């Protein structure tokens, strides 16, 4: 399996340019894959999947008894971003997060930006994610959103655009970290020689971010990750992050409010908790303040938070910046607070509450993507060109009934990355979710989650809708160029990828390795060896 018949088909390809030449920084990887013996790539793919399953990096699938959990499909061909592109992204994301935090604070306090009519007041006030309970809140140092996972896409011209801001509880970073673990073992030498910027520091950075929120005068603060529980689809990530940071993983039932503080129920009685990284939506946080029917939250926690006796990341109320109608105003928001032009452009957006825009949207439904302003995860969406006449009519009706709740965007032809499909390599569309932390300062994790739409031609990358993931390598292409001349002949030096001992055994396959079972070999269970977990076969 190799790239010999690989076609970019007119799309922007992340590994190859329009003449099918590997882009700077991708040569080592492309050469490696080209040089692999027949079927080795497929074996690498299979063992990476096995390794992920054994790591237990699974997400829950609701409503299916048999395999109630699955690994998120993972493709071992990484997406590579060169450092020059990355630096622009990083700067743009910092600018955006900084401005959006100012915006959120302003909206819940003086509302200057609304009074100055830069963003229509009724638009913000009608956000389903607006939280009256947050008016006048003072989160530590005025930062509301400490963890962001911005969704970016790359258009046919090679430019990155912001698609969504995700300032509430973005998930997926655990996949970034575990995918990297597995891929390091899949392509160890290419990885080492490509000078990929590391992502492993994320849990430390996250912990530092949380520590920066500790209310003053707390000598040895207690920090916890608040999860909805083990049946939540992102539970693995919650527990993974708590483990990596060495902090408590708590559920709502573990916490209780008493005499003005939040406490954990422990085997030795109640113990105070100072910072909560909550992975629970605003609505469920506190039945006393938000939804009274929430069984997952902690009654009274908002009062404690308001008084500064417990810190939370992210602050409640940040959802206003996720509203897709507000999104359309982000370039203006950046200009208003920072007097700068947005470094990262938005995807052009039509706001259906504006008569002119709505008219245009209704007339061009077959060319546009329509989205509900408050939905995420690929729900509540119409992809005009792929929809039936009936679906378009249904959406036209929805838009006319509640124009506030809809926006529309031109279809962007998302960039593609070579992906293993069956026994060939084909281009599949991807997006990119970098993770941004805002504690003492703003930090952008170099890399992020590349989500890939595994269905041919599909533009929907969400895991709930048939999407998978890839590792994302940020590479200093210039530096690597000089490295490359030394080690271009990786294989000639006798170092064979995946065989660290240096002895090249291209015929070694999964089958021959698991030769344990003498009576038929139908089950790995019969192999008494401790877990290998290794992705190299």
């Amino acid at each position: 399996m190799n790239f010999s018949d690989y076609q970019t088909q007119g799309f922007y390809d992340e590994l190859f340019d329009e003449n099918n030449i590997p882009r700077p920084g991708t040569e080592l990887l492309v050469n490696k894959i080209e040089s692999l013996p027949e079927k080795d790539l497929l074996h690498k793919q299979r063992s990476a999947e096995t390794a992920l399953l054994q790591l237990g990096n699974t997400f829950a699938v609701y409503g299916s008894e048999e395999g109630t959990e699955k690994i998120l499909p993972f493709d071992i061909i990484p997406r590579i971003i060169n450092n020059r592109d990355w630096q622009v992204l990083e700067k743009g994301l910092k600018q955006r997060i900084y401005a959006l935090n100012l915006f959120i604070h302003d909206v819940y306090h003086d509302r200057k930006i609304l009074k100055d009519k830069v963003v229509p007041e009724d638009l913000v006030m009608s956000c389903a994610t607006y939280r009256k309970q947050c008016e006048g809140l003072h989160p530590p140092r005025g930062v509301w959103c400490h963890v962001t996972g911005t969704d970016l896409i790359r258009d046919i011209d090679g430019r990155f655009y912001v698609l969504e801001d995700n300032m509430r509880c973005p998930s997926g970073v655990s996949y970034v970290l575990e995918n990297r673990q597995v891929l390091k073992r899949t392509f160890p030498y290419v990885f080492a020689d490509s000078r990929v910027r590391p992502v492993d520091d994320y849990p430390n950075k996250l912990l530092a971010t949380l520590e920066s929120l500790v209310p003053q005068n707390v000598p040895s603060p207690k920090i916890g990750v608040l999860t909805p529980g083990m049946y939540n689809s992102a539970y693995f990530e919650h527990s993974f992050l708590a483990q990596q940071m060495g902090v408590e993983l708590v559920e709502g039932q573990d916490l209780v409010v008493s005499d003005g503080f939040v406490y954990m129920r422990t085997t030795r009685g109640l113990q105070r908790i100072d910072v909560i990284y909550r992975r629970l939506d605003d609505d469920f946080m506190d039945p006393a303040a938000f939804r009274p029917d929430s069984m997952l939250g902690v009654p009274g926690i908002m009062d404690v938070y308001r008084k500064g006796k417990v810190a939370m990341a992210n602050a409640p109320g940040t959802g206003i910046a996720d509203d897709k109608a507000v999104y359309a105003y982000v370039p203006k928001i950046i200009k208003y607070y920072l007097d700068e032009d947005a470094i990262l452009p938005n995807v052009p957006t039509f706001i259906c509450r504006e008569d002119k825009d709505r008219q245009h949207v209704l007339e061009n439904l077959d060319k546009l993507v329509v989205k509900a302003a408050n939905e995420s995860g690929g729900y509540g969406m119409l992809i005009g060109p792929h929809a039936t006449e009936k679906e378009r009519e249904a959406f036209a009706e929805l838009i006319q009934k509640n124009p506030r709740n809809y926006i529309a965007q031109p279809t962007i032809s998302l960039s593609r990355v070579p992906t293993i499909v069956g026994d060939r390599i084909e281009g599949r569309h991807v997006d990119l979710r970098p993770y941004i932390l805002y504690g003492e300062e703003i930090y952008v994790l170099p890399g992020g989650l590349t989500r890939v739409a595994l269905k041919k031609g599909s533009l929907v990358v969400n895991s709930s809708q048939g999407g998978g993931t890839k590792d994302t390598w940020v590479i200093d292409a210039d530096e690597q160029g000089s490295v490359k001349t030394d080690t271009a002949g990786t294989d000639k030096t006798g170092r064979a990828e995946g065989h660290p001992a240096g002895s090249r055994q291209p015929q070694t396959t999964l089958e021959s390795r698991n030769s344990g079972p003498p009576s038929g070999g139908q089950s790995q269970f019969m192999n008494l060896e401790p877990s290998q977990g290794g992705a190299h076969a």
Partner: protein
Amino acid sequence: MLSRVASSVYWMTRYVERAENIARFISVNLNLTLDFPSESGSQWQPIVMTTGDHDLFEKKYGTDYSSRNVIRFLALDPEYGNSILSSLRAARENARSVREIISSEMWEQINRFYIELRDAARTDFPNRNPHKFFKIITMRGHMFTGLLYSTMSHGEAFRFALTGLMLERADKTSRILDVKYFMLLPKGGEVNSPYDSIQWAAVLKSASALEMYRKRFHRIIPRQVCEFLIFDGEFPRSIRYCLKKAEQSLHKISSSPVGTVSNPAERSLGRLCADIDYSDIDEVIDTGMHEYLDGLQVKINTVGAHIHEAFFKVISAEN
């Protein structure tokens, strides 16, 4: 530590130990079929009797106590809550809820253990090669316990894990001994026959105790086998050894010396340990072996209930 976490860790090891020990009961019989291949058909009912769940068995399988049905029920039945498969599923769910507390090696091991058992359960492997199948389960159980000891800090969470493990093991050793009682029921005449001593050897083997027993008592004499599995102070699966370990572990949690009492769990476990310390095999035989073991199991359950009371019960905010 969080009460919920303490409870999950405690149940995680209990369930792994339970799964391992069900494999051990079943292997009593597998060991016997090696010695008496022709008898193998009639001897599976006692195993189910030992578990106390024969009603459940008969509801599903009628009175057909074939090896196939019994293995299906005790090992692979996802609907029977105490089957090996169900126990491991519960162990894994508990482990999953405390992944940040246990080592990643422990999680990966139990995750793999469950997934592979579940897959193997769909094949014919357990019936085609039961010796190997149950041996692997026992070894996987050991591997988990080994990882528990050598990859997890011996702090509070470990103490809860060890307490759960030891209580479960004490209970299950008593049940393995009980298998023998149920085997004798239909055939009282076989006491002291060669068949008898082979059965006792099978019991010892199932508790991994045959060699250690021989070092101490050499010949297989029923009374001494019972003494060994109940009272031995050094054998790590004897009931007394397990209860003492559980007691020490429990006292490390509360940092109070053994012999003092700081909560109801320490009281009931202390009483149980003292009872075993100041008792001997003659007394057991006078009481009646089955009756004695039955009483023991009830007391171990009481200790479990007290542990729940002392550490896991949701504490109200008023405290």
